[in-house]
């Protein structure tokens, strides 16, 4: 499945967004925003996480993983995480990313 795809393969192979986001061991020099989306305590498996910049413009999107997970490799700064899911579900969370750090979000919808 996509979630187990090595990061190097995801980069060299193409541009697509693997479900749940490309895997990572540690932040290294990346500014990572990641987390999980839940509804009534269970993972939301069908849905999308979008990353918007501080101006509200779209930057990236991944389908949620089977565990409701998502991951972005952002630049340092302030971002908005937007979740879209069936049933018209739409939820926004603000997040600040920093180089070398993993910022975790739990989004209950």
């Amino acid at each position, binding site marked *: *499945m996509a979630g187990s795809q090595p990061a190097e393969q995801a980069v060299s192979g193409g*541009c*697509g967004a693997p479900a749940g*986001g490309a895997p990572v061991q540690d932040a290294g020099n*990346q500014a990572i925003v990641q987390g999980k989306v839940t509804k009534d305590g269970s993972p939301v498996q069908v849905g999308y996480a979008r990353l918007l910049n501080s101006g509200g413009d779209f930057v*990236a999107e991944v389908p949620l993983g089977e565990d409701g997970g998502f991951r972005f490799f952002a630049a340092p700064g302030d971002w908005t995480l937007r979740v879209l899911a*069936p049933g018209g579900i739409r939820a926004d969370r603000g997040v600040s990313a920093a180089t070398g750090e993993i910022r975790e979000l739990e989004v209950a919808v």
Partner: protein
Amino acid sequence: MSRSDVLVDADWVDAHRGDPGVVLVEVDEDTSAYDKGHIRGAVKLDWKADLQDPVRRDFVDRAGFEALLSQRGISNDDTVILYGGNNNWFAAYAYWYFKLYGHQNVKLLDGGRKKWELDSRELVTDVPRRPATSYAAREQDTSIRAFRDEVVAAIGARNLIDVRSPDEFAGRLLAPAHLPQEQAQRGGHVPTARNVPWSKAAEEDGTFKSDDALRALYGEAGLDFARDTIAYCRIGERSAHTWFVLHELLGQPNVKNYDGSWTEYGSLVGVPIKLGDES
């Protein structure tokens, strides 16, 4: 050309997917999405394994494309309906690719896999069996494909549209933010290119914006509709989405997709590069 010539919606797919001569094709980079569930009757194409040469950086050749479509059971006369994930990036790329090899009747499902999923429509795991055909492709129509020397020659002479995110355009990121950022090539953009991220052409559910909204978008970004245009991104699939908008929806006559895109241009020795948010 009108929208109905190049786009269908989900209701059309539900009504026509069993019709003779209609073939649904899901196109993804990560085909595990298809394997977990797809629109009933759809066959799959793998953006990389099926459409790229396994050795050289190029497309499969004409004979390879003929063999691929023959094996998938697609005929020259079929109406091919393409859809996929990533807001139809790879489906739009396949659309452009089918046109490159001369397939006449090809359309996109507006909104792709995302809108289909968000609307909670049926997905199945049954894989259809289609009898093999004898597909005949044409020579590549390079009037819609740009190569690197054309891009360099287009600086200041043609519209160059960089459809990556503003941070990639400026050189602050080297890849989309859903991917790790380590890359060997230089960051930045082709001088004189306008940055119109592909995402501005799409609604949140992945459907295309109206023709009026699209025309206003590119007009306000400084696109000269009287000039020829080359679109590029990182590897050519997001720019295929924009090629579809400009050439197929807005009817601009001379629009090319530069599939080498930034992974090629940003690694060329000696070509000009501009950093920052300005064109």
